[in-house]
């Protein structure tokens, strides 16, 4: 019934309009002045248009306009940066209009945990970034969309592979050995960060084009509603929903987005070429026929052999609209990217569907989101990156005689490859086949019901599922030199599958009650959440013929989190805001005695700007003070799902023990900590949201202090007291303190030219304050930071009083000319010898300051954007040089075989590797121009219904740094054969109708 009536009304509207136009067809001028509502200044260049027509004009230098109208016309006044205004006018009148500045989205809704909130009412520290501000260009992994956009957030990609994952740190890490990754919530479904077999990154399941906003919750008053998983911040990803087509009479919008990219290698590790290498060998080993006899005659640049310029493309098509009052959005995407490391490829197909109907007289709103992702990978053997640096440059790539795929190989006298010598880097790439096929579905159904008899009360039910299934195979043929077993059959094969499942049920009630008599508003929410994580891995491996060394690994595990949570918002006089949240989490990972944890938070905000006495402070347009306190937890401890349970595990078939001629599979009792529990991070936050000059400048300033207690730390147990020597237990404290500042400004606001600039700056200092039960001052700490070279060597340490991951080195001694003297270190403890006790804490890889800069310039139909980031005070250990820059690497007697060295060998001038010389620690401060993009927009195509945007973008434009290695941006500060980040030239096309 209602449906039909609606359509009838829709038909009636234009008819009525038409009739009225005919009835009073007396044309005349309307004039007036357009001003700023705040200070009354005139606005030159504002647009004045007659609604529903193409008639329009622009205000003059004095903000004055004149326009011809029919009676009962509606004029639309608009100006960049101001809220548009519609006014009904009659001919021959004067209409002055005051436009209100766009309130910098203060009234916009932001997604918070279990609900939405007006941005202006937020009491916690949170930042939302929407599609307009995203990084542009060739972006496969969605997390790159917001790199550099948010103060306090660092996103460091693991390298330059297609779809490569990234390390995300929000306000430094809150943990040492447990996870430091933020909680990711996709359309209300918290997902786990454990990764998916065969996928390059858990984020790749989402098409970047489907994302509407990222909301990053930073302080505990914002995150504590997520309790035990919130210590490292929360990133809420909201995908695009259906909405009516833009423009008149358009029931839907179709949008196509295409990206075509060319990835180019910008830098390689500087090593000797064949001639230089031969010369150096002859100089170092004159007449040594044993060594020189191994030299080849070629000049091979192995790095050029393994890298390529590669192409990629990305297509997305979406349809968004409303059918029968049901908003919908459907999209499909296809990505095909080759890596710059030969044979690396990623293909992805994504499908997403969002429907959001309202029912029961709008009392029930339903939100259905489904995202399906099909990822196919061909993984290149990354070992080739390091091998290409080290491989003898005097040898040729191919060798017609070689039975090992025709690739030149280090061979023993009997023709068998030298097992300890590196394999031919090109063979590593071309012979090894490593493919995967990953399917993932993330979906949720959300019902939001406004009670019929109590409309202030809302019930919200969210049922979610995140399910993935992967399979992959690795095949190394029998002629691959590094998998030769003449006795049992060569080659290697493995097959793996993984099933992952994450099921969610959330339910909450929300009661909102304004009590105007006491100038108060209450907003109360209470809820329950149940979540189940399940994983089943299966791997089968063996030689190529599956008849030797066969091994089956089954790994199946699950965990549950059940939670109760609530939030109480109280607003007094619309300027004093109080938020109190409490979450009670129960995890199956801990014992019944410790599995329940309470995570409270409280925050106060004061909208100072709304105080009557602020009315005179004309230059200020926003001023809000926020203070917050909260406790969050961490239960993602990387120790499996049963760390508290006494368990026994079986050995595999290669660790059996023979007794009386029979091989017994063994049963091992596992170490455990029955009392293991959450890490607790307490955060104090004070922040100020400000705006000046009608929000020409606005932003935030936040100070925070975070202290993690009961740090989950992997420490030695008292020997003999447990069934292992190290255990993860709650011991130690860690603190982070920092400042975040952001400013957004519009240096130019003109009708033809608009420039928006965003800048953010962050400072974070991390310090470990306790690590042991005994507070033993002689305790050095927990070694970490494994390097390449030797076995088990580590160059970093977590020590009390220092930043986490501090480098722990010997202090190099230099000669008069400033050259390092090999194996000569400062005897720091003056005991006459150089021992472990002379190592000291020297710098750390964590940036002290980091900055992000984004600029968007619109000139007529042109748009020029750029975005860049800088880090200061991040130190890098040059493992490439410490391992490969020494003479001992020229000739390896254990082969024997030859190896290349880095070109800086003469500066280093060491015979043997000296891994712990602080000579290899360098300042890695940098500025990286992430992208520069220029686009042009064609409007009103095809009967004014379509638009087209063409863009040219360069990603990873340049890096300014004093660091001489490949790339100073390395998540944990150890530069060791990074997959080079390519420079990407991108052509983009966006077509919309």
């Amino acid at each position: 019934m209602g449906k039909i009536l609606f359509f009838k009304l829709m038909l009636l509207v234009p008819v009525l309009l038409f009739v009225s136009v005919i009835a009073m067809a007396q044309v005349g001028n309307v004039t007036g002045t357009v001003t700023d509502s705040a200070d009354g200044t005139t606005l030159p260049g504002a647009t004045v248009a007659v609604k529903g027509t193409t008639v329009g004009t622009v205000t003059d230098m004095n903000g004055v306009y004149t326009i011809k109208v029919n009676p009962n016309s509606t004029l639309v006044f608009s100006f960049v940066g101001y809220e548009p205004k519609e006014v009904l006018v009659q001919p021959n009148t004067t209409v002055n209009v005051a436009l209100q500045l766009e309130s910098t989205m203060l009234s916009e809704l932001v997604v918070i945990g279990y609900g939405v909130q007006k941005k202006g009412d937020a009491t916690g520290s949170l930042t939302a970034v929407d599609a307009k501000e995203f990084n542009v260009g060739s972006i496969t992994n969605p997390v790159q969309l917001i790199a550099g956009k948010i103060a306090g957030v660092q996103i460091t990609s693991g390298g330059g592979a297609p779809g490569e994952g990234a390390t995300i740190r929000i306000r430094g890490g809150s943990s040492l050995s447990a996870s430091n990754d933020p909680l990711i919530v996709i359309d209300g479904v918290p997902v786990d960060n454990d990764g998916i077999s065969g996928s390059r990154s858990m984020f790749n399941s989402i098409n970047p084009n489907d994302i509407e906003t990222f909301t990053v919750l930073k302080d505990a008053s914002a995150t504590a509603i997520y309790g035990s998983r919130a210590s490292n911040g929360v990133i809420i990803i909201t995908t695009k929903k259906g909405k009516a087509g833009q423009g008149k009479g358009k029931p839907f919008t179709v949008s196509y987005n295409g990206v075509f990219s060319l990835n180019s290698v910008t830098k390689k590790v500087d090593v000797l070429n064949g001639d230089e290498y031969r010369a150096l060998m002859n100089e170092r080993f004159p007449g040594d026929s044993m060594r020189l006899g191994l030299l080849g005659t070629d000049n091979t640049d192995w790095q050029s052999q393994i890298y390529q310029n590669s192409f990629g493309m990305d297509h997305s098509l979406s349809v968004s609209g409303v059918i029968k009052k049901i908003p919908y959005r459907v999209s499909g995407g296809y990505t095909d990217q080759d890596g710059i490391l030969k044979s690396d490829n990623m293909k992805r197909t994504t499908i997403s569907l969002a429907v959001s109907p309202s029912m029961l007289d709008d009392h029930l709103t339903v939100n259905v989101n489904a995202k399906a992702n099909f990822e196919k990978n061909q993984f290149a053997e990354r070992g080739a990156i390091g091998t290409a640096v080290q491989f003898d440059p005097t040898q040729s790539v191919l060798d017609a005689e070689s039975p090992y795929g025709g690739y030149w190989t280090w061979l023993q006298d009997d023709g068998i490859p030298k097992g300890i010598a590196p394999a031919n880097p090109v063979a590593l790439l071309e012979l090894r086949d490593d493919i995967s096929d990953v399917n993932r579905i993330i979906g949720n159904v959300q019902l939001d019901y406004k009670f019929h008899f109590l409309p202030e009360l809302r019930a919200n039910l969210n049922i979610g599922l995140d399910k993935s299934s992967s399979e992959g195979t690795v095949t190394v043929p029998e002629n691959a030199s590094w998998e030769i077993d003449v006795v049992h059959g060569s080659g290697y094969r493995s097959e793996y599958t993984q099933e992952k499942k994450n099921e969610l049920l959330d339910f909450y009630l929300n009661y909102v009650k304004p009590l105007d008599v006491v100038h108060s508003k209450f907003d109360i929410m209470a809820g329950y959440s149940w979540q189940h994580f399940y994983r089943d891995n299966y791997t089968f491996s063996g030689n190529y013929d599956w008849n030797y060394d066969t091994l089956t690994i089954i790994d199946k595990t699950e965990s549950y989190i059940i939670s109760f949570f609530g939030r109480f918002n109280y607003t007094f006089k619309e300027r004093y805001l109080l938020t109190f949240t409490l979450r009670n989490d129960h995890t199956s990972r801990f014992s019944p005695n410790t599995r329940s944890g309470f995570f409270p938070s409280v925050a106060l905000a004061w909208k100072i700007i709304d105080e009557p006495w602020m009315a005179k402070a004309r230059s200020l347009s926003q001023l809000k003070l926020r203070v917050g306190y909260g406790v969050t937890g961490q239960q993602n401890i990387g120790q499996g799902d049963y760390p508290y349970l006494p368990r026994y595990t079986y050995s595999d078939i290669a660790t059996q023990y023979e007794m009386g001629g029979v091989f017994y599979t063994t049963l091992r009792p596992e170490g455990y900590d029955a009392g293991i529990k959450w890490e607790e991070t307490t955060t104090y936050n004070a922040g100020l949201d400000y705006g000046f000059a009608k929000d020409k400048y606005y932003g935030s300033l936040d100070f925070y202090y975070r202290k993690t207690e009961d740090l989950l730390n992997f420490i030695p147990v008292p020997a003999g007291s447990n069934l292992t020597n190290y255990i993860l237990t709650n011991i130690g404290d860690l603190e982070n303190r920092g400042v975040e500042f952001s400013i957004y400004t519009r240096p130019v606001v003109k009708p033809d030219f608009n420039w928006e600039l965003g800048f953010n700056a962050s400072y974070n200092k991390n310090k470990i304050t306790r690590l042991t039960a005994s507070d033993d001052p002689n305790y050095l700490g927990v070694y970490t930071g494994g390097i390449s070279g030797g076995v088990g060597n580590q160059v970093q340490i977590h020590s009390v009083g220092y930043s986490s991951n501090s480098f722990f080195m010997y202090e190099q001694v230099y000669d008069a000319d400033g050259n390092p003297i090999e194996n000569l270190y400062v005897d720091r403890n003056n005991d006459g010898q150089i021992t472990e006790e002379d190592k000291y804490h020297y710098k750390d890889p964590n940036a002290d300051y980091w900055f992000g800069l984004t600029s968007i310039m619109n000139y007529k139909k042109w748009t020029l954007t750029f975005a860049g980031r800088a880090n200061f005070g991040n130190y890098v250990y040059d493992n490439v040089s410490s391992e490969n820059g020494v003479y001992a690497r020229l000739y390896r007697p254990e082969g024997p075989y030859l190896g290349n060295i880095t070109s800086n060998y003469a500066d280093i001038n060491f015979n043997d590797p000296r891994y712990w010389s602080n000579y290899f620690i360098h300042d890695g401060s940098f500025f990286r121009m992430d992208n520069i993009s220029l686009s042009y927009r064609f409007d009103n195509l095809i009967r004014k219904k379509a638009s087209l945007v063409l863009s040219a973008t360069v990603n990873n434009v340049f890096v300014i740094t004093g660091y001489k290695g490949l790339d100073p941006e390395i998540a944990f500060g150890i530069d060791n054969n990074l997959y080079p980040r390519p420079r990407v030239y991108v052509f983009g096309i966006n077509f919309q109708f």
Partner: protein
Amino acid sequence: MKYKIKFASLMAGLILVSTSCLKDLDTVPIDPDELTSASVYENPASYKQVLAKLYAGLAVSGQQGPAGRSDISGIDEGFGQYLRGLWYMQELTTDEAVIAWNDQTIKDLHWQTWGPSDVFITAFYYRIFYQVSICNEFLRETTDSKLDERGVSGQLRTDIGYFRAEARFLRALSYWHALDHFGNVPFVTEEDEVGAFFPEQISRANLFTYVESELKAIEPLLVGARQNEYGRADKGAAWMLLAKLYLNAEVYIGQARYTDCLNYCNMIIQAGYSLEPEYKDLFLVDNANSPEVIFPVVYDGIHTRTYGGTTFLVHASVGGDMDPAASGIADPWGGTRTTSAFVNKFTDITGETDSRAMFFTDGQSLEIEDISLFTHGYAINKWKNLKSDGSAGDDIYFVGTDFPMFRLADVYLMYAEAVLRTGSDVTTAVGYINQLRERAYGDASGNITSGDLDLDFVLDERARELYWEGHRRTDLVRYNYFTSDQYLWQWKGNSTNGVATNDKYNLFPIPSADLTANLNLVQNPGY
């Protein structure tokens, strides 16, 4: 209207339903490879599988071969393997071995400059206590009352009696390693439950008494010498350990117990062990069931894999111009060689007279200028992944050679030393030594007379007979040659030709990691 009421009450009802799911939190492992300690012993087969782990703790590094699901952490898994750790402590610190690699603090071992935070020392220490802990766990779970509870009876009950005695032997073996290397260590038995507590430190002398009493207590409970399944400990193994304890008693408790040592040596000798006819066969893949071996650590190229153990011994010893195939492997690691001091124990290093001289000298220098270079110092190819007929082992990457931890030749040499130190008649001892030399020389040409037999001769003969088998450090300490200037070798004390070092190095330090973790511990003197 009716549906509205229904819907509203449905929503309200959901709240009640949802709170009833807390029982989901009581999860148990769903992986078929994992059992809880409550359920594991429901299966009668589990007892022997846990016993197998107590032995495997000496042989492999974790539950996945060759590496993975490691038993101990904080160190590269291969380094943390028990035998490899024992070998590092006993051999790299002496004249018998140097290693080329740049692994962490490994060179400190040969230089005798280690400190309490040394990762290799720490790893071996934890390995010892790992063994002690899992033996304790087995003993806790197999008490009479627990077995009664589970209704275990009959043959299984009898077998478990032997298993328990063997678990106590293995614990005693590790405690012996603890008191030999570390002296005063934390002390835990099956009486201590698993959990967060600080074990008390026991003095070296008290630990000596404990190990002695345990071995004596289990002696009647163990299977007779040479009567148990191959690979499992028997009375012979317990006697051997007692003999070793007594031989070194002066070092351990400052009190000579050589007569006790002789008694147990005699018991072993009379139990029917005999020398393997060919010396070289003791170190080959088919050395299992050798009549000479009293207690082995068993390896298999397919079923018992690790980067420690004999896989380490064979691979690390091959490098330079050596043909890997001659050692039965494909991938030499180029690590271990020996010093000239050891080479000089042989008058003929070719092996043609004394077949125990198994040196590889092509392209190798006798003297060591740079420890990091494999070609400095003679290589040794005693350990091989070949069978006695020269054919290949079961696997080319993983070695199947068993490690003879205790063997009869050692008993003969201990006997001779104890006789000399007690001033008894040496006639029998000379006979035993000559049995070893006849095997080595192939005839009587290398035989000695009683006039040749003195303590230094025994020590040198121990080197020639038992080198690279994990005995050297204990022997040098007993002779006070380990740190003193009475005996030097290249790079002892980080000096080309060797210098004396502080006598604190006769004991390893208690690792600083455990000093921090356990407030009851006091560091060894000098560290």
